[in-house]
């Protein structure tokens, strides 16, 4: 019986039909009878003590449900890595927009006016807003020293290496905050029942994160908290940890009022109050040999975590581990720290620390190339990791990746050398300067080190009454294709048709904890568990005699139907087990940091218009090795979408801060690229397979975020011979740099004869 491959083909998106017909249900599309609307009163200062809260005149306060920290049954915290972040401020505020109290009312229109009618008197305390201010410790706003976490990664013997250096190259690089800007704002609906406990429905990535934090907040056992993920309109990490906060708020109001409560943020609230990408500062000092080889490096990687710890240690970890890039460092010391400032806590955003540290490194490689007098492509080629060599954490590369060949293919596909030559000629006159830039990088998929083992993810597959399979995971679909790919995997694993498999809505009452939908782990780690769980169903059916070893999809369904009719629905589970021989030392931060790395070379072509100082990306090549492409259209979509976000990170998206509060919290003034701003993004894949991933897949969701920003700034430097070391790079920044260095005014001649 010939089997049509499902994995590797672009099957229809599992939930796609609902999305193109408008029937897909997002949280704001849902209402419950008697539902109230909730809103949050927030701090208007960055730091201080709350002296008095006054409920202003002209509002029928008795119609409102009001919740303060006193109403919290359990511990007043949003449990994450530490319990330092309050659900509602209790006497002290540590950042602008910090939640103070909650209001609910049947008429959603009344809420914003009512929120404004609550006035708060503060005793302000001095606040800090930058990494440098935090390091100075003139104000200690968190712990003893404002430091959430540090890591130290060391390898080799640094001191000797400096002696032998032909060149020492040193520089500092910074990246700004970035808003995830999912088009669907955060939202939740909560219901409280004294028997059943709490149920929340919402836009979220990690049902069990919300579950865990609600348990603690309400002092409820696991079976009395239920979290259901609705169709989620984009997330990118912005709905990894924050939903726990908004769920807590909705649930508290539901508990106090005895009614369902819906909280939906508008764009301004979502942008100003929720998480953003951690701003970063990286200082790199490298010793280079005469031949251009990296002899040693000291990397100082610091991220701004905002006012509470939240996920900063994990972002820091990934950023620190990726700080060495795809290169061989015989000797390296990476010092990483996450520090506190009085801004809303920064959080998960696609890439999760790696875009920050890799931006610095890939800019630095171009600098090294310049100092060493070696071309930008050669300096990379010389230093690429080779199979058998070790990373900065002493992980041995044991797959046959040939980065030199990958680089060659990228250079070829982008016509790099010819273009570089043309651009040099082209740039001699005229107002438009062209440049081309390279970034080579890697991204580790799955949780770091022992993380997957700690998670102990479980995936399930259920045999259904109609003879089909239903996948049970807490992995959330938010556009990246989770539903589709997991169904492909199960179907392929059992030789069924794609239509024979469905996937359950992530509901903590129904699905096991397959871990959060983050870290590019879903296809690779959870997919493999789904594969095993599916095989479990098959084995059960075969063992029971209803199914023979070789069968057609219809035969499977018949057998499955028969079995379920006789024994009832049954489920097969598979739990993550760390592979043999995987070694990770959490104290020394050494060993196998990730089960698999995806590798990439990206090349950006830009034009800088000296009339307006703006940068346009004219062409973008994204070449990556990803293990196996399970769904070509989805995979391509992930890369293009990630590159687009990273172009925003590099050139457009600036958060304008004023004393810890975002000033441009609207889409008019927070600029993301439109369809008229992006070039064709050309995507190519290579597939080396991956023993740890379902059907050889590696994670790819975050990879495309790491490369574009440095590739673009490398291209800008190629065009202008000015080194920019900070993103976002706006036309105003380019203008400022040019006017600083401008001496005699050269008036370029206008171009002629261009048809």
């Amino acid at each position: 019986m010939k089997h049509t491959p499902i994995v590797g083909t672009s099957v229809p998106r599992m939930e796609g039909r609902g999305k193109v017909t408008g029937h897909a249900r997002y949280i704001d599309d849902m209402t419950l009878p008697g539902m109230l609307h909730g809103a949050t009163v927030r701090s208007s200062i960055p730091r201080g003590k709350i002296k008095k809260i006054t409920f202003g005149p002209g509002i029928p306060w008795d119609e409102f449900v009001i919740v303060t920290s006193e109403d919290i049954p359990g511990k007043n915290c949003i449990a994450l890595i530490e319990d330092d972040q309050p659900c509602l401020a209790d006497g002290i505020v540590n950042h602008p927009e910090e939640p103070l109290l909650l209001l609910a009312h049947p008429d959603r229109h009344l809420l914003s006016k009512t929120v404004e009618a609550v006035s708060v008197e503060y005793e302000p305390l001095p606040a800090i807003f930058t990494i440098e201010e935090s390091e100075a410790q003139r104000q200690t706003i968190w712990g003893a020293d404002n430091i959430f976490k540090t890591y130290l990664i060391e390898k080799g013997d640094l001191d000797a290496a400096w002696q032998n250096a032909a060149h020492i190259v040193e520089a500092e690089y910074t990246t700004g905050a970035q808003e995830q800007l999912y088009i669907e704002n955060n939202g939740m609906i909560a219901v409280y029942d004294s028997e059943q406990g709490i149920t929340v429905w919402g836009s979220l990535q990690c049902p069990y994160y919300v579950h865990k934090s609600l348990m603690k907040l309400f002092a409820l056992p696991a079976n009395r908290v239920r979290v259901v993920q609705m169709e989620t309109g984009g997330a990118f990490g912005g709905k990894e940890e924050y939903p726990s906060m908004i769920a807590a708020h909705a649930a508290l109001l539901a508990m106090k009022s005895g009614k369902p409560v819906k909280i939906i943020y508008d764009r301004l609230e979502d942008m100003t109050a929720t998480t953003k990408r951690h701003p970063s500062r990286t200082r790199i000092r490298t010793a280079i040999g005469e031949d251009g080889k990296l002899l040693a490096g000291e990397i100082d990687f610091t991220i701004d975590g905002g006012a509470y710890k939240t996920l900063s240690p994990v972002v820091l970890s990934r950023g620190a581990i990726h700080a060495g890039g795809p290169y061989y460092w015989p000797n390296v010391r990476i010092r990483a720290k996450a520090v506190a400032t009085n801004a809303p806590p920064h959080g998960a955003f696609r890439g999760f620390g790696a875009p920050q540290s890799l931006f610095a490194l890939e800019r630095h490689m171009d600098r090294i190339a310049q100092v060493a007098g070696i071309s930008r492509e050669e300096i990379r080629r010389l230093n690429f990791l080779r199979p058998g060599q070790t990373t900065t954490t002493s992980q041995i590369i044991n797959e046959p990746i040939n980065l030199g060949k990958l680089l060659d293919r990228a250079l070829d596909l982008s016509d790099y050398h010819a273009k570089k030559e043309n651009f040099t000629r082209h740039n001699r006159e005229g107002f438009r300067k062209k440049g081309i830039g390279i970034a080579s990088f890697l991204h580790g998929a799955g949780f770091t080190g022992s993380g997957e083992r700690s998670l102990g993810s479980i995936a399930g597959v259920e045999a259904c009454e109609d003879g089909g399979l239903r996948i049970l995971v807490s992995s959330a679909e938010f556009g990246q294709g989770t539903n589709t790919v997991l169904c492909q995997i199960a179907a392929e694993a059992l030789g069924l048709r794609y239509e024979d498999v469905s996937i359950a809505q992530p509901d903590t009452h129904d699905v096991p904890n397959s871990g959060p939908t983050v870290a590019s782990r879903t296809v690779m780690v959870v997919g493999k568990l789904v594969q095993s769980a599916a095989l479990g169903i098959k084995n059960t059916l075969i063992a029971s005699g209803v199914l023979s070893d070789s069968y057609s999809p219809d035969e499977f369904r018949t057998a499955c139907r028969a079995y379920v009719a006789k024994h009832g629905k049954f489920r097969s589970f598979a739990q993550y087990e760390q592979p043999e021989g995987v070694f990770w030392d959490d104290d020394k931060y050494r060993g196998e940091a990730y089960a698999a790395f995806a590798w990439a070379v990206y090349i950006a072509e830009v034009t800088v218009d000296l009339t307006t100082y703006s940068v346009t990306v004219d062409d973008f090549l994204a070449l990556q090795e990803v293990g196996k492409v399970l769904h070509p259209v989805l995979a391509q979509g992930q890369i293009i979408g990630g590159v687009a976000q990273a172009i925003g990170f590099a050139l457009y998206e600036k958060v304008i801060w004023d004393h810890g509060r975002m000033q441009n919290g609207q889409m008019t003034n927070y600029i993301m690229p439109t369809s008229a701003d992006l070039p064709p993004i050309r995507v190519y894949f290579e597939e080396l397979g991956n023993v740890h991933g379902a059907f050889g897949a590696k994670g790819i969701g975050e990879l495309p975020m790491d490369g574009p920003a440095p590739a673009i700034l490398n291209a800008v430097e190629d065009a202008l011979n000015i080194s920019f070391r900070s993103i976002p790079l706006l036309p105003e920044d380019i203008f400022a740099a040019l006017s600083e260095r401008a001496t005699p005014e050269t008036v370029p001649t206008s171009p002629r004869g261009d048809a």
Partner: protein
Amino acid sequence: MTASSQERPQCEISFTVNGMSHTVRAYPMERLLDVLRHDLELTGTKEGCGEGECGSCSVLLDGALVNSCLIPVLQASGSEIVTIEGLASNGRLQVLQQSFLDCGGAQCGICTPGMILASVHLLNKKPQPTLEEIREGLSGNLCRCTGYMQIIEAVADAARTGAAK
């Protein structure tokens, strides 16, 4: 039951949505978006920004693409509105919807209703648009997931398929 001392009256406003006549009682300054979503329970039209930047709330009003978050419902009186729910008929997807599915034009799906309506509007005016014209026609609809390319391909694909009919 309200907090305001200055209450204005509601009025009755009639219009056609997806071919069906409706009369709603609403405040004249209620946003058309909210009336569609709450009074008519047509939740396919989405709110992404509330300021006419993202296009998720796009509908066709008398054949013109508009941002329904910026239209007071009174001004929609007597008009013919088409929302995303009005495209597929009897369960059969329109060519454009199928193209979005085939080409990966919908990822998280939140921008998709508005994006599809903007595409319908474009193809109504320009049945054979160039890639540049597609880019321009969709430049008022923001998508954070796709980077636009597969959406543009979907529209080009629909234009080809449509022309072949």
